[in-house]
């Protein structure tokens, strides 16, 4: 009895990932994303990288062979914009590090608060996600559009001090993580973009109106330029007053230099035009997130070469800036030539929704190949990671998922997940809960002993 209990609890401990080894995935439909699908082929992983893929690829003698049995192999999915690792339980303030509070603005760096032991990392990986951009939200503006959830009881769900005024103008700086189990540091890159909002939440950050928001953003960029060129004078107190602190100005320097993009959350068509105008006039790079009315200005976004991150489920006129929301927004943007990344649900720790959101966009007219790219190569490019990940190409890091069917389909799930060539454990807190209560046990002991 004791012995079997001990064995059972040992089996429940989180498994550690195996070391990188040579692996050959055979009998698979391979979707490299960077090129046409290989209907039946082999993919070889060696030294953590993709070593070969194709129909006639030989299996190395020392390879561990995984028979995909006709399943699908894709690049690991990339979450385009999440709070993974920076927020655990959105309703529990102490577990949230995805917003700056009001001590800092652009300088807030989300990478410092990322917890590699977050229980939602294995959970996301169980949905085929192998990497994620971790992007700050404006404090006090919540995590997303689900204000009606939980029976309409809106919770104060943001980090930082509560009840002390408007959020900062800039949300802070984004990071990029790869979901390697057991790694002490999962941050792949930090300070990848500075976030800001236009529209209703931006107006709130600026004291109440859109006009003020844009003026303050432009003024901050101007200050950052002045700060960059007159740093010595600033240290001697010989410059005019700047609207932001030294730290916030320093964080904006790479933005005004065009090295780091500004990620702009925006919904209404008119606000999107303002964002494009801001980028052109300030000569800065931008990424647009939200973009519910993007289809109305799709050619303009395409001409500007600006990528977008969208949630294809957002079809409700749930505010006065999303009145034209449509289920085929992603399809129309893509048809106009816009690079479209598709997001999961930031709320409810539901990054697993991302691939289904891509499926929904496909159901509403997005070509399948663009649907797959929207959750792999496009977000990898947006976040400057496409040299390493995002597609199945020889030499890229082996972030690879083997699926038992179409990766965008509700009835499919990942069979094997590799990050950097290392096969990842498949259990998570959720699977352990599941297995504890799915088990039938006649021992007479409560589930806590299982």
């Amino acid at each position: 009895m004791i012995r079997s209990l001990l064995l059972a609890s040992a089996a429940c401990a989180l498994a550690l990932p195996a070391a990188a080894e040579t692996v050959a995935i055979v009998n698979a439909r391979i979707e490299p994303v960077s090129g046409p699908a290989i209907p039946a082929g082999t993919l070889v992983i060696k030294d953590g990288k993709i070593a070969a893929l194709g129909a006639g690829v030989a299996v190395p003698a020392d390879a561990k062979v995984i028979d995909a049995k006709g399943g699908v192999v894709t690049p690991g999915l990339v979450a385009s914009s999440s709070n993974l690792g920076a927020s655990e339980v959105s309703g529990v303030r102490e577990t949230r590090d995805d917003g700056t509070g009001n001590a800092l603005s652009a300088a807030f760096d989300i990478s410092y608060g990322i917890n590699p032991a977050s229980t939602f990392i294995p959970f996301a990986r169980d949905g085929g996600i192998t990497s994620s951009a971790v992007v700050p939200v404006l404090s006090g503006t919540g995590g997303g559009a689900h204000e009606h959830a939980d029976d309409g009881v809106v919770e104060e769900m943001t980090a930082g001090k509560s009840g002390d005024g408007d959020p900062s103008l800039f949300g802070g700086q984004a990071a990029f993580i790869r979901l390697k189990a057991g790694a002490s540091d999962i941050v792949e890159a930090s300070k990848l973009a500075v976030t800001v909002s236009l529209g209703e939440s931006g107006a709130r950050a600026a004291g109440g109106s859109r006009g003020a928001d844009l003026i303050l953003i432009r003024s901050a960029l101007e200050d950052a330029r002045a700060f960059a060129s007159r740093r010595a004078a600033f240290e001697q107190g010989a410059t005019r007053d700047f609207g932001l602190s030294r730290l916030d100005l320093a964080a904006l320097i790479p933005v005004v230099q065009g090295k780091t993009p500004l990620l702009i959350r925006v919904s209404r068509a008119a606000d999107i035009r303002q964002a494009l105008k801001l980028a052109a006039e300030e000569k800065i790079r931008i990424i647009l997130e939200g973009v519910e009315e993007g289809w109305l200005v799709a050619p303009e976004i395409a001409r500007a070469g600006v990528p977008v991150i969208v949630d294809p489920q957002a079809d409700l006129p749930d505010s006065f800036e999303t009145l034209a929301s449509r289920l085929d927004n992603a399809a129309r943007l893509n048809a106009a030539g816009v690079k479209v990344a598709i997001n999961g649900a930031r709320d409810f720790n539901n990054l697993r929704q991302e691939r289904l959101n891509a499926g929904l966009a496909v159901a509403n007219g997005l070509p399948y190949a663009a649907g797959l790219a929207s959750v792999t190569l496009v977000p990898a490019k947006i976040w400057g990671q496409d040299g390493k990940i995002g597609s199945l190409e020889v030499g890229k890091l082996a972030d690879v998922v083997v699926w038992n069917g179409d990766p965008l389909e509700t009835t499919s799930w990942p069979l094997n997940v590799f990050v950097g060539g290392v096969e990842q454990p498949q259990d998570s807190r959720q699977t352990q809960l599941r297995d504890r209560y799915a088990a039938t046990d006649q021992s007479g002991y409560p589930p806590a002993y299982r």
Partner: protein
Amino acid sequence: MIRWRNAAAAVSLLALGLSACATTGTGGPAKPSSTAQKDGKPAEKAEIKPLPKGLDGQASTGFPSTYKPFPSQTMAFVGATVLTATGQQIDNGVVVTSGGKVVAVGGPETAIPADAVKVDATGKWLTPGIIDAHSHLGVYPSPGVQARSDGNEATDPNTAQVWAEHSVWPQDPGFNRARAGGVTTLQILPGSANLFGGRSVTLKNVPALTMQGMKFPDAPYGLKMACGENPKRVYGGKGRSPSTAMGNVFGYRKAWIDAADYARKWDDFRAKQQKGEKADAPKRDLQMETLAGVLKGDILVQNHCYRADEEATMIDIAKEFGYKITMFHHAIESYKIAPLLAKEGICSATWASWTGFKMESLDGIDANAAILWKNGACVVIHSDDPIMTQRLNQEAAIAMTAGNKLGYGISRAEAIKWITANPAKAMGIGDKTGSIEPGKAADLVIWSRDPFSVYAQAEKVFIDGALIYDRKDARFQPKSDFELGQPGQGAFN
């Protein structure tokens, strides 16, 4: 003269019918008995005047449904894969509807009436209309502005006296979006700020100018109750009770004691009245009337509750006061007590993919529904969300897949019940809709393909046999007044 008398009789019958309809679930021994005619004794010695209608919950006319089915024809849907929600999947099926009802369902050999309009549904799938047992459409409409934030009367922990139907804005564009997702029936609930949030209302998802035009005829009312974090946070934050879980439980028990007392007073009054004795009618109290309706079994308890241990406590409270909990909503941890819920016959309405957004949802797993199903407990997949309600078929697919990952082998014929027959049952309308069976309402959805696929779209939606939405015909894509003249003009797909 005779004709006049008949007409009058008809009118009074109608009045009775209306009153029975409006009082469904308002409490009391359902049968109207305001005059003592039992032993054939005429009522003339009853100097007792009937109470004015508004002072007697049983006689109150309330807010009766004015819903009328839209025009329909006798139809035969031929060639589809039919999920009946009675456990059957019929390939190459035939479903015949007439007079707003399903009249026949079967294989290709099923007889088709000569006058039926034939709909070739080869390659398509046919299911009952989707039923969302947990919606705030109309009470938290789009756009979500403060002026229309009508879902929580968060001024007292017990607001059993408020009715969600009085907050419903029929022009909520969300109704149209939900309909395009195949949703034909909705239970609109008050929010969960309060221990007792108020009455729910069941609506047919038809465009209408008034709530009454959508109200599902003869559906019982529900009472929204809420466990857990929300009430104690809302009132604790105001320095009031409840501020703790134990304060919540005190609040429920106190209210049930008051309600039992109120019910007894009315029972005593009616008993005396029946005997022809003089009696003073108790003062009608809308809060107590709703709670008493639960104790009488006329109003169904729809209980927001995440945690398994709190569900068990709620079950004990129900036993203490002699009422029944029809369904736990959200029910994130129901899988931990699946055998208990099966034994008690309590449904669990849940999501498949939401977890960890607050402490009481921390243990949410996608296999919740599947483990309940495996234990023989009643499963409902609900939305609580104007986005998810548009794709309850996919949410059910995620829940089904989580079970099949465990090797449960849950079929589509079973899983479809989670969003059709089971919510119908838990809303007290299972005898009227929710499955494709002769005699049931012809509330139907034609899907472009397997509805459990991410690529499936509702192509045509029928309520009571009438076409109410057609993805390929703009004439059957109704738009809300709110969206006219706005960017997008209400077109969303």
